[in-house]
């Protein structure tokens, strides 16, 4: 094989058949120092290795496409990416491609396309170009587009390496967790605003034409509430002194409200008012219907226990 087919391996000889991916990507501090001045390598200590044909396929797999391979060729010779000796690189690139084809390796179309691109650049480089004043503009360099693509690709190749080095979960760190043995079910009740409820009420009123009833309109809500309060104050089967239902500290208005509430409850048959004899104190108890129901409920409870 020709020297061009040597590939500079940082690894030892027995690693030659191992995926050469290690060569482009894994930096090794031990192999570190060699620098380049004017394209001339100063210190060069790497072991050159021939690629055994069976390893070539692995070699090819180590590249992420023609840009990656081209970058590798440039980097391994420490060439300035901004000043690629296009003829040399093209020659080397073509040798690899030819060899791969001889070995009948399946070659992605992108590799052949790159070969054509390189050949085209090479031929354009041969053409005379008009002298411009001083520096030559980027546009007139046939390599410009290729260089731009190589640089762009290299940026993301390096970014990928940087991402791979970033500490990540399940490799460099793990989320700390502790067992919650018994999870309590927490249900959050919906929130309601008064306004929401009033809007709902307004709508139901509109639908039911309750507005039409005068008595409803005039009815004080305090009476309604007091009706509820009086009912709940009465225990089943128990008489309660009528006067005890009133709270004088509420004043005249409160007493009136309670009185109206009691009358309304009486009218609806929800309470009974009894008097043992004339002028005896009045007593209030739950109306027969309410009383029976409550007693039944109480009995059920007892039976249930």
């Amino acid at each position, binding site marked *: 094989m020709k020297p061009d087919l040597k590939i500079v391996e940082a690894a030892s000889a027995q690693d030659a058949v191992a995926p050469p991916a290690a060569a482009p990507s894994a930096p090794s501090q031990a192999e570190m120092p060699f620098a380049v001045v004017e394209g001339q390598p100063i210190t060069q200590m790497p072991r050159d290795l021939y690629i055994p044909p069976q390893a070539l396929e692995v070699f090819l797999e180590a590249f992420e496409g023609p840009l990656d391979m081209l970058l590798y060729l440039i980097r391994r010779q420490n060439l300035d990416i901004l000043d690629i000796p296009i003829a040399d690189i093209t020659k080397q690139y073509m040798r690899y491609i030819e060899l791969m084809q001889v070995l009948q390796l399946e070659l992605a179309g992108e590799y052949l396309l790159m070969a054509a691109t390189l050949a085209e650049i090479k031929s354009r480089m041969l053409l005379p170009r008009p002298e411009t004043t001083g520096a030559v503009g980027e546009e007139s360099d046939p390599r410009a587009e290729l260089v731009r693509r190589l640089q762009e690709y290299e940026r993301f190749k390096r970014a990928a390496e940087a991402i791979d080095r970033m500490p990540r979960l399940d490799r460099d760190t793990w989320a700390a967790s502790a067992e919650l043995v018994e999870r309590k079910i927490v249900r959050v009740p919906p929130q309601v605003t008064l306004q929401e409820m*009033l*809007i709902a*009420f307004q709508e139901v009123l509109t639908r039911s034409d309750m507005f039409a009833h005068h008595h409803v309109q005039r009815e004080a809500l305090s009476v309604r509430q007091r009706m*509820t309060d009086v009912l709940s104050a009465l225990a089943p089967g128990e008489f309660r002194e009528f006067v005890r239902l009133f709270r004088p500290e509420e004043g005249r208005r409160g007493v009136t409200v309670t009185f109206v509430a009691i009358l309304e409850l009486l009218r609806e048959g929800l309470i009974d008012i009894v008097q043992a004899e004339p002028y005896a104190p009045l007593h209030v108890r739950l109306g027969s219907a*309410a009383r029976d129901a409550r007693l039944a409920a109480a009995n059920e409870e007892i039976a249930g226990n």
Partner: protein
Amino acid sequence: MNEHYVRNVVEAALLAAGRPLNVDELIALFDERDAASAEEVRAAVTALASDYETRGIELKEVAGGFRIQIRESFAPPVSRLWQERPAKYSRALLETLALVAYRQPITRGEIEQIRGVSVNPNIIKTLQERNWVRVVGHRDVPGRPELLGTTRDFLDYFGLKRLDDLPTLAQLKELDDLRVQLSLPGAEPVAPPAAPPEAADEGSPADTAAPEAQELVERDASDVAG
């Protein structure tokens, strides 16, 4: 072995493992150079356990070994992580609640009569569970239906001192649009303490749906933007 190092490794491993670890597994964390004995590992476990005594976590020995777990008394707040998103009450529920408030004591049948549709028993149940509505008696008619009234909790939740603070029907009638007219006499339509901010726009379905959609949008954006 450094006692603190052993303890730190044991703690980190127990928190990373996601399963209980026994003494052998804990010993195996240390390589030959930094070998830790069973005694050292046990001492580390004991030290951690006492370290956690004042905390929301505890170190427990279970069948598979040692495990760091959430202390049972901390289960209620921690469980809130998985709490269901509060749903919204249906219009039917709100109407029922309003009718109980304004027309109490009232039976389910009477509510149905006014609303013109049957009342789902779950609505009454929900209102009772919330402790806003309770049975205050029974009406003296066949079937002795339950009479429903509102509770003290109901008044407290809506920031009312008494039922009278609710606007009268006449006032309600005058308020053509409650959505616009916000201040009601006596009853300030103030959102309860924990009410979500969107409550001010209540009543317009498009508005009520918006916050969730908004949040979704925001999440999407943050996903992209990082």
